[in-house]
């Protein structure tokens, strides 16, 4: 405070003559300073984040290999449509891209609700008067900081068809061994067959839920992302004033009522944030699939078995990196995905505005 008062006394007397002496050039330099500070960030962001949108669109108009080969206009986009759904002999056939979209959808539906729900349960448990909070939090968060490649190796080993622990556990439960990450059969069909029913041949197998292989990837991703959700939710829970709970308890509210009337609404901004982040990152999932079921390099098929784990990102990667002259096509696909994600986020915010309770 004192400093400020002293300043107020000094400044008017001091600044005027100095300005007159230093003149206009100094003032111009001062005006330039902020932009000098911003320059590295702005230049790099422009080159590597903003410019790529234009460049990506430009590339998507070309047949592109190591460089531009032939201008093809909207052909790549037309091919995208054809690869999504085709009509062959009067009946619709799901193309490779359509298949990837379904795979991604199964993945998103498989990972997000489970990861959010489990995290919510654990976060509420940890948000009590308990000992060892730091230990539990670290235990749940550790997978999130572990390199996906390294963690993926362990899951490959756990799901090993011959000597993996997963099959050992199934054996103990009296269930038949599985080939896990190599099994392209849809989980829902497996269950239907297991209870003794037949699968109607009129329904395409692509619509019968994730393959067992994708199911394993989903388990891996839940394992890897749950800790992040827990830490964020704990922060959200800590931000709820305890007086509200105390007041509710005095009024005779039970735990379920407090959960429904206090925790849910007051945690809804946090949950909304997590849902947004989870959706965006689930649609971009790459590494987990690449490591667990093969990215197409090293002699494996991209998103095997039978492309039942080829997520959209893997599809784009495969065309961009491993197929000749389809960089332009991959760019077109990534462009469509971009607009899809923007639309999805916008939609989410419109729905969220009505549902989320802000204090």
């Amino acid at each position, binding site marked *: 405070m004192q400093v400020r008062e002293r300043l107020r006394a000094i400044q008017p007397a001091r600044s005027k003559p100095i300005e007159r002496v230093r003149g206009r050039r100094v003032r111009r330099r001062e005006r330039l300073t*902020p932009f000098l500070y911003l320059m590295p960030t702005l230049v*790099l962001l422009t080159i590597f984040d903003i*410019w790529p949108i234009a460049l990506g669109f430009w590339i998507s108009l070309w047949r592109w290999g190591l460089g531009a080969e032939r201008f093809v206009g909207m052909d790549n986009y037309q091919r995208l449509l054809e690869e999504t759904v085709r009509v062959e002999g009067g009946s619709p056939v799901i193309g490779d891209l359509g298949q990837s979209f379904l795979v991604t959808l199964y993945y998103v539906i498989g990972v997000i609700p489970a990861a959010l729900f489990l995290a919510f349960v654990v976060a509420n448990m940890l948000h009590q008067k308990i000992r060892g909070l730091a230990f539990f939090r670290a*235990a749940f968060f550790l997978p999130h900081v572990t390199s996906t490649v*390294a963690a993926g190796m362990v899951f490959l080993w756990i799901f090993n068809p011959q000597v993996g*622990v997963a099959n050992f556990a199934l054996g103990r439960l009296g269930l038949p061994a599985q080939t896990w990450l190599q099994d392209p059969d849809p989980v829902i069909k497996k269950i239907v067959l297991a209870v003794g029913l037949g699968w109607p041949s009129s329904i395409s197998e692509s619509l019968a839920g994730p393959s067992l292989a994708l199911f394993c990837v989903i388990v891996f991703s839940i394992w890897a992302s749950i800790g992040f959700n827990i830490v964020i939710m704990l922060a959200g829970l*800590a931000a709820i004033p305890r007086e509200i709970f105390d007041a509710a308890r005095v009024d005779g509210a039970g735990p379920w009522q407090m959960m429904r009337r206090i925790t849910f609404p007051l945690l809804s901004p946090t949950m909304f944030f997590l849902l947004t982040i989870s959706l965006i990152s689930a649609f971009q999932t790459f590494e987990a699939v690449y490591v667990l079921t093969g990215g197409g390099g090293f002699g494996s098929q991209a998103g095997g078995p039978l492309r039942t784990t080829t997520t959209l990102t893997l599809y784009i990667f495969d065309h961009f990196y491993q197929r000749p002259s389809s960089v332009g096509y991959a760019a077109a696909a990534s462009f469509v995905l971009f607009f899809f994600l923007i639309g999805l986020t916008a939609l989410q915010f419109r729905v969220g505005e009505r549902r989320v309770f802000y204090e």
Partner: protein
Amino acid sequence: MMRHDGDRVLKPRSVPRLSLVALYLILTAGAALMLFPFFWMVMTSLKSLGEINLSPPTVLPNEWNFSNYVEAWNKPESTFGRYFLNSALIAIVGTALQMFSAILAAYAFARMNFPLKGPLFLLLLGTLMIPFEVTLIPNFVTIRHMPLLGGNDITGSGGQGLYDSYAGIILPGIANVFSVFLLRQAFLQMPRDFWDAAQIDGASQWTFLWRVAVPLAMPTLLTATLFALLARWNAVLWPLIITSSEELRPVQVAMLYFRGEEGPNFHYLLAAATLVALPGILLYLFTQRYFTEGLSSGAIKG
């Protein structure tokens, strides 16, 4: 300003004894499930090839083969030593540059006035919406066609630009909006009197930034640094596509090749995986507090 330091978090409810036991049982079971893959990774990495293929599997190794680690380390032709050095170099240099540029930008946004400040900041936040799939392919093309570098002429053709170079790996990730955002928050919280006082002492913006503002924002800077280091250490996709020569390969990419080469030798694979995962895990375990705080302040507009 709220503190999210986990151990001092408000604990609203005391729990009756019986359900407390149940609570601990469930939490312990959950934690065991989460930690099992780590346990299994280390155990498998210490067994012999014969033992890992036993059915039913042994829990603890019959014979503790610590030599697996040495053998895995020396297995790939140019050895893991080089890959670790690459990863460390990429992570440290990349993070240093990221922090330097983020500090400058954050300071400008927090403590300077200039035209278009609001729109520019919105633009910055807007880039967070751009998914990496969109930038991946154009950035690959941009790096390959950098004018006058790597044998390229002024139009960016002829050579391979920054493709297959450390610069090519590091460059696209330097400008990081998340770091700028975190640091800006920290600079904004600094009392204005500090700047006034420093000005009386004749300090310039530059001196003030490095002598006063940065030291005061150290916890936030540390948080941002840790996130950046970890993200770079664990990165796979970009280094995979932007390099081709083995001398530049970071550990994560090397691990993918190692898997291709070693196939069923999971004791070696998991020994290598343990070594690859360890730096990140240690980094987290020793600096947990900063991670938790950083994540929380990013989420709950700190």
